[in-house]
Protein backbone atom coordinates (compact mmCIF):
# COMPACT_ATOMS: atom_id res chain seq x y z
CA UNK A 1 0.00 0.00 0.00
CA UNK A 2 1.61 3.24 -1.07
CA UNK A 3 1.15 6.51 0.74
CA UNK A 4 -0.70 9.20 -1.15
CA UNK A 5 1.03 11.23 -3.81
CA UNK A 6 2.54 14.47 -2.52
CA UNK A 7 0.50 17.62 -2.88
CA UNK A 8 -2.47 15.95 -4.42
CA UNK A 9 -4.80 17.92 -2.22
CA UNK A 10 -3.86 21.41 -3.30
CA UNK A 11 -2.82 20.91 -6.90
CA UNK A 12 -6.37 20.98 -8.20
CA UNK A 13 -7.12 24.29 -6.51
CA UNK A 14 -3.99 26.05 -7.75
CA UNK A 15 -4.32 24.70 -11.28
CA UNK A 16 -7.67 26.46 -11.62
CA UNK A 17 -6.26 29.79 -10.44
CA UNK A 18 -4.91 31.33 -13.63
CA UNK A 19 -6.58 32.21 -16.93
CA UNK A 20 -4.60 32.61 -20.11
CA UNK A 21 -5.72 35.20 -22.64
CA UNK A 22 -4.12 34.72 -26.04
CA UNK A 23 -4.29 37.37 -28.77
CA UNK A 24 -3.52 36.64 -32.43
CA UNK A 25 -2.25 39.06 -35.09
CA UNK A 26 -4.29 39.14 -38.29
CA UNK A 27 -1.34 38.27 -40.56
CA UNK A 28 0.39 35.34 -38.94
CA UNK A 29 -2.30 33.94 -36.69
CA UNK A 30 0.49 33.51 -34.17
CA UNK A 31 -0.02 34.75 -30.66
CA UNK A 32 1.44 38.25 -30.30
CA UNK A 33 0.80 38.51 -26.61
CA UNK A 34 0.13 36.26 -23.75
CA UNK A 35 -1.40 37.90 -20.76
CA UNK A 36 -2.27 36.30 -17.54
CA UNK A 37 -5.45 37.80 -16.20
CA UNK A 38 -4.95 38.86 -12.60
CA UNK A 39 -6.88 36.51 -10.40
CA UNK A 40 -7.51 36.47 -6.69
CA UNK A 41 -5.12 33.97 -5.11
CA UNK A 42 -6.87 30.92 -3.77
CA UNK A 43 -7.66 31.12 -0.06
CA UNK A 44 -5.21 29.26 2.16
CA UNK A 45 -6.18 25.66 2.77
CA UNK A 46 -7.44 25.45 6.39
CA UNK A 47 -5.93 21.98 6.68
CA UNK A 48 -2.50 23.26 5.70
CA UNK A 49 -2.73 26.21 8.09
CA UNK A 50 -3.78 23.84 10.85
CA UNK A 51 -0.84 21.51 10.14
CA UNK A 52 1.59 24.44 10.30
CA UNK A 53 0.05 25.56 13.59
CA UNK A 54 0.32 22.01 14.96
CA UNK A 55 4.01 21.89 14.10
CA UNK A 56 4.45 25.26 15.83
CA UNK A 57 2.72 23.87 18.92
CA UNK A 58 5.04 20.85 18.98
CA UNK A 59 8.14 23.02 18.52
CA UNK A 60 6.93 25.25 21.34
CA UNK A 61 6.24 22.29 23.62
CA UNK A 62 9.69 20.79 22.92
CA UNK A 63 11.35 24.12 23.72
CA UNK A 64 9.41 24.38 26.99
CA UNK A 65 9.86 20.74 27.98
CA UNK A 66 13.01 19.34 26.35
CA UNK A 67 12.57 16.07 28.26
CA UNK A 68 9.70 15.27 25.85
CA UNK A 69 11.85 15.82 22.79
CA UNK A 70 11.92 12.15 21.68
CA UNK A 71 8.25 11.37 21.08
CA UNK A 72 7.21 14.92 20.31
CA UNK A 73 9.88 15.33 17.62
CA UNK A 74 8.70 12.12 15.97
CA UNK A 75 5.09 13.32 15.90
CA UNK A 76 6.10 16.81 14.74
CA UNK A 77 8.01 15.19 11.84
CA UNK A 78 4.84 13.32 10.87
CA UNK A 79 2.97 16.63 10.80
CA UNK A 80 5.69 18.03 8.55
CA UNK A 81 5.03 15.11 6.18
CA UNK A 82 1.30 15.89 6.33
CA UNK A 83 1.98 19.57 5.61
CA UNK A 84 4.13 18.68 2.59
CA UNK A 85 1.36 16.44 1.33
CA UNK A 86 -1.02 19.39 1.65
CA UNK A 87 1.28 21.62 -0.39
CA UNK A 88 3.68 23.22 2.12
CA UNK A 89 7.06 24.26 0.80
CA UNK A 90 10.31 23.88 2.72
CA UNK A 91 10.23 27.68 3.16
CA UNK A 92 6.79 27.36 4.80
CA UNK A 93 8.18 24.75 7.18
CA UNK A 94 11.28 26.79 7.98
CA UNK A 95 9.19 29.88 8.72
CA UNK A 96 7.09 28.19 11.40
CA UNK A 97 7.09 30.10 14.68
CA UNK A 98 7.03 28.08 17.91
CA UNK A 99 3.75 28.33 19.81
CA UNK A 100 4.54 28.06 23.52
CA UNK A 101 2.14 25.92 25.55
CA UNK A 102 -0.22 27.97 27.69
CA UNK A 103 0.35 25.56 30.58
CA UNK A 104 3.42 25.98 32.77
CA UNK A 105 3.53 22.30 33.70
CA UNK A 106 4.32 19.39 31.46
CA UNK A 107 1.19 17.30 32.00
CA UNK A 108 -1.36 19.99 31.05
CA UNK A 109 0.91 20.96 28.15
CA UNK A 110 0.61 17.41 26.78
CA UNK A 111 -3.15 17.59 27.34
CA UNK A 112 -3.18 20.70 25.13
CA UNK A 113 -1.46 18.75 22.37
CA UNK A 114 -4.00 15.93 22.75
CA UNK A 115 -6.84 18.43 22.28
CA UNK A 116 -5.13 19.88 19.21
CA UNK A 117 -4.70 16.40 17.72
CA UNK A 118 -8.35 15.49 18.31
CA UNK A 119 -9.45 18.70 16.68
CA UNK A 120 -7.06 18.15 13.76
CA UNK A 121 -8.27 14.58 13.23
CA UNK A 122 -11.88 15.82 13.17
CA UNK A 123 -11.09 18.61 10.69
CA UNK A 124 -9.21 16.25 8.39
CA UNK A 125 -12.09 13.72 8.53
CA UNK A 126 -14.65 16.43 7.69
CA UNK A 127 -12.45 17.61 4.83
CA UNK A 128 -12.16 14.04 3.52
CA UNK A 129 -15.95 13.86 3.39
CA UNK A 130 -16.14 17.11 1.42
CA UNK A 131 -13.15 16.47 -0.87
CA UNK A 132 -13.90 16.22 -4.58
CA UNK A 133 -11.20 13.96 -5.95
CA UNK A 134 -10.41 10.42 -4.92
CA UNK A 135 -6.75 11.31 -4.39
CA UNK A 136 -7.67 14.14 -2.02
CA UNK A 137 -10.06 11.89 -0.09
CA UNK A 138 -7.38 9.23 0.21
CA UNK A 139 -4.70 11.66 1.37
CA UNK A 140 -6.95 13.33 3.93
CA UNK A 141 -8.13 9.94 5.23
CA UNK A 142 -4.54 8.85 5.79
CA UNK A 143 -3.78 12.11 7.60
CA UNK A 144 -6.98 11.92 9.67
CA UNK A 145 -6.01 8.40 10.71
CA UNK A 146 -2.45 9.36 11.59
CA UNK A 147 -3.65 12.26 13.74
CA UNK A 148 -6.20 10.06 15.47
CA UNK A 149 -3.35 7.68 16.35
CA UNK A 150 -1.39 10.51 17.97
CA UNK A 151 -4.01 10.75 20.72
CA UNK A 152 -3.25 7.38 22.40
CA UNK A 153 0.47 7.97 21.81
CA UNK A 154 0.31 11.31 23.65
CA UNK A 155 -1.77 9.75 26.41
CA UNK A 156 1.12 7.33 26.95
CA UNK A 157 3.49 10.32 27.12
CA UNK A 158 1.20 11.99 29.66
CA UNK A 159 1.08 8.82 31.77
CA UNK A 160 4.86 8.72 31.71
CA UNK A 161 5.17 12.22 33.13
CA UNK A 162 2.48 11.74 35.78
CA UNK A 163 3.80 12.88 39.11
CA UNK A 164 6.71 14.76 37.56
CA UNK A 165 4.70 17.90 36.87
Amino acid sequence: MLPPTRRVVLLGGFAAGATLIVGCSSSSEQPDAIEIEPTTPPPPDPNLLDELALIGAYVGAIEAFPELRGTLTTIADQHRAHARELGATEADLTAITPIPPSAANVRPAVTELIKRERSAADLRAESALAAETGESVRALTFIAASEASHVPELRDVRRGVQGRS
Partner: protein
Amino acid sequence: MTYTDPAVVSTIQNAIRSEQNYVYACGIAGAELKGGGRRRAVAQIAEHQQRIQVLAALIQEDDVPTTPPAFSPPIAIDSARSARASLAQLNNALVGVYADMAASTEGADRAFAVAGAQSSARTAVQWGAASQAFPTGE
Protein backbone atom coordinates in the same frame (compact mmCIF):
# COMPACT_ATOMS: atom_id res chain seq x y z
CA MET B 1 -26.83 2.22 -1.16
CA THR B 2 -25.81 -0.92 -3.01
CA TYR B 3 -22.68 -0.45 -5.09
CA THR B 4 -22.36 -2.32 -8.38
CA ASP B 5 -19.45 -0.46 -10.02
CA PRO B 6 -16.73 -3.14 -10.13
CA ALA B 7 -14.02 -0.73 -8.95
CA VAL B 8 -16.02 0.31 -5.89
CA VAL B 9 -17.17 -3.24 -5.18
CA SER B 10 -13.53 -4.31 -5.26
CA THR B 11 -12.50 -1.82 -2.55
CA ILE B 12 -15.39 -2.96 -0.35
CA GLN B 13 -14.56 -6.62 -0.93
CA ASN B 14 -10.97 -5.86 0.02
CA ALA B 15 -12.19 -4.24 3.23
CA ILE B 16 -14.37 -7.28 4.02
CA ARG B 17 -11.49 -9.71 3.40
CA SER B 18 -9.13 -7.62 5.53
CA GLU B 19 -11.67 -7.49 8.34
CA GLN B 20 -12.29 -11.25 8.10
CA ASN B 21 -8.56 -11.80 8.40
CA TYR B 22 -8.36 -9.43 11.35
CA VAL B 23 -11.15 -11.28 13.16
CA TYR B 24 -9.29 -14.56 12.58
CA ALA B 25 -6.03 -13.03 13.84
CA CYS B 26 -7.79 -11.72 16.96
CA GLY B 27 -8.87 -15.29 17.71
CA ILE B 28 -5.31 -16.59 17.45
CA ALA B 29 -3.95 -13.63 19.39
CA GLY B 30 -6.51 -14.08 22.14
CA ALA B 31 -5.05 -17.51 22.86
CA GLU B 32 -1.59 -15.98 23.41
CA LEU B 33 -2.63 -12.84 25.31
CA LYS B 34 -3.64 -12.59 28.93
CA GLY B 35 -5.64 -10.12 31.03
CA GLY B 36 -6.53 -6.81 29.41
CA GLY B 37 -4.89 -7.74 26.10
CA ARG B 38 -7.02 -10.86 25.78
CA ARG B 39 -10.17 -8.96 26.72
CA ARG B 40 -9.38 -6.31 24.12
CA ALA B 41 -8.75 -8.92 21.40
CA VAL B 42 -12.03 -10.68 22.20
CA ALA B 43 -13.94 -7.39 22.22
CA GLN B 44 -12.44 -6.52 18.86
CA ILE B 45 -13.74 -9.75 17.32
CA ALA B 46 -17.30 -8.54 17.89
CA GLU B 47 -16.46 -4.99 16.83
CA HIS B 48 -14.90 -6.06 13.53
CA GLN B 49 -17.63 -8.62 12.81
CA GLN B 50 -20.02 -5.71 13.09
CA ARG B 51 -17.94 -3.80 10.55
CA ILE B 52 -18.12 -6.80 8.18
CA GLN B 53 -21.92 -6.73 8.40
CA VAL B 54 -22.01 -3.02 7.56
CA LEU B 55 -19.62 -3.54 4.63
CA ALA B 56 -21.52 -6.56 3.33
CA ALA B 57 -24.73 -4.52 3.21
CA LEU B 58 -23.10 -2.13 0.73
CA ILE B 59 -22.73 -4.68 -2.07
CA GLN B 60 -24.86 -7.39 -3.62
CA GLU B 61 -25.03 -10.65 -1.69
CA ASP B 62 -23.26 -12.57 -4.44
CA ASP B 63 -20.35 -10.13 -4.28
CA VAL B 64 -19.71 -10.65 -0.57
CA PRO B 65 -16.55 -12.74 -0.11
CA THR B 66 -16.99 -15.93 1.87
CA THR B 67 -15.10 -16.17 5.13
CA PRO B 68 -11.82 -18.03 4.48
CA PRO B 69 -11.20 -21.09 6.65
CA ALA B 70 -7.85 -19.77 7.87
CA PHE B 71 -5.42 -16.88 7.57
CA SER B 72 -1.67 -16.60 8.09
CA PRO B 73 -0.83 -13.10 9.35
CA PRO B 74 2.32 -11.49 7.92
CA ILE B 75 3.68 -11.45 11.48
CA ALA B 76 3.19 -15.00 12.77
CA ILE B 77 1.47 -15.16 16.15
CA ASP B 78 3.22 -17.51 18.56
CA SER B 79 3.59 -15.40 21.70
CA ALA B 80 1.96 -12.46 23.47
CA ARG B 81 4.57 -10.14 22.00
CA SER B 82 4.08 -11.31 18.42
CA ALA B 83 0.30 -11.23 18.94
CA ARG B 84 0.45 -7.53 19.78
CA ALA B 85 2.83 -6.79 16.91
CA SER B 86 0.68 -8.71 14.46
CA LEU B 87 -2.57 -7.02 15.46
CA ALA B 88 -0.85 -3.62 15.30
CA GLN B 89 0.46 -4.36 11.79
CA LEU B 90 -2.92 -5.59 10.58
CA ASN B 91 -4.61 -2.46 11.93
CA ASN B 92 -2.18 -0.18 10.12
CA ALA B 93 -2.83 -2.17 6.94
CA LEU B 94 -6.58 -1.59 7.47
CA VAL B 95 -5.96 2.17 7.32
CA GLY B 96 -4.94 1.91 3.67
CA VAL B 97 -7.82 -0.42 2.90
CA TYR B 98 -10.31 2.07 4.34
CA ALA B 99 -8.58 5.02 2.64
CA ASP B 100 -9.13 3.26 -0.70
CA MET B 101 -12.77 2.64 0.18
CA ALA B 102 -13.24 6.27 1.26
CA ALA B 103 -11.84 7.44 -2.07
CA SER B 104 -14.38 5.41 -4.03
CA THR B 105 -17.53 5.98 -1.98
CA GLU B 106 -19.63 8.95 -0.92
CA GLY B 107 -21.69 10.32 1.93
CA ALA B 108 -22.32 8.07 4.92
CA ASP B 109 -20.34 5.23 3.36
CA ARG B 110 -17.29 7.45 2.98
CA ALA B 111 -17.76 8.62 6.57
CA PHE B 112 -17.82 4.97 7.68
CA ALA B 113 -14.57 4.34 5.82
CA VAL B 114 -12.83 7.41 7.24
CA ALA B 115 -13.95 6.46 10.76
CA GLY B 116 -12.69 2.92 10.13
CA ALA B 117 -9.29 4.26 9.09
CA GLN B 118 -9.06 6.47 12.18
CA SER B 119 -10.15 3.70 14.53
CA SER B 120 -7.67 1.25 12.98
CA ALA B 121 -4.74 3.69 13.30
CA ARG B 122 -5.63 4.36 16.96
CA THR B 123 -5.91 0.64 17.65
CA ALA B 124 -2.52 -0.02 16.03
CA VAL B 125 -0.92 2.35 18.55
CA GLN B 126 -2.87 0.76 21.39
CA TRP B 127 -1.37 -2.61 20.35
CA GLY B 128 2.07 -1.08 20.64
CA ALA B 129 2.93 0.29 17.17
CA ALA B 130 4.50 3.71 16.83
CA SER B 131 2.31 6.19 14.98
CA GLN B 132 3.05 6.77 11.29
CA ALA B 133 2.53 9.80 9.04
CA PHE B 134 0.76 7.57 6.52
CA PRO B 135 -0.05 4.27 8.24
CA THR B 136 0.29 1.35 5.84
CA GLY B 137 1.24 -1.68 7.88
CA GLU B 138 4.51 -2.01 6.01
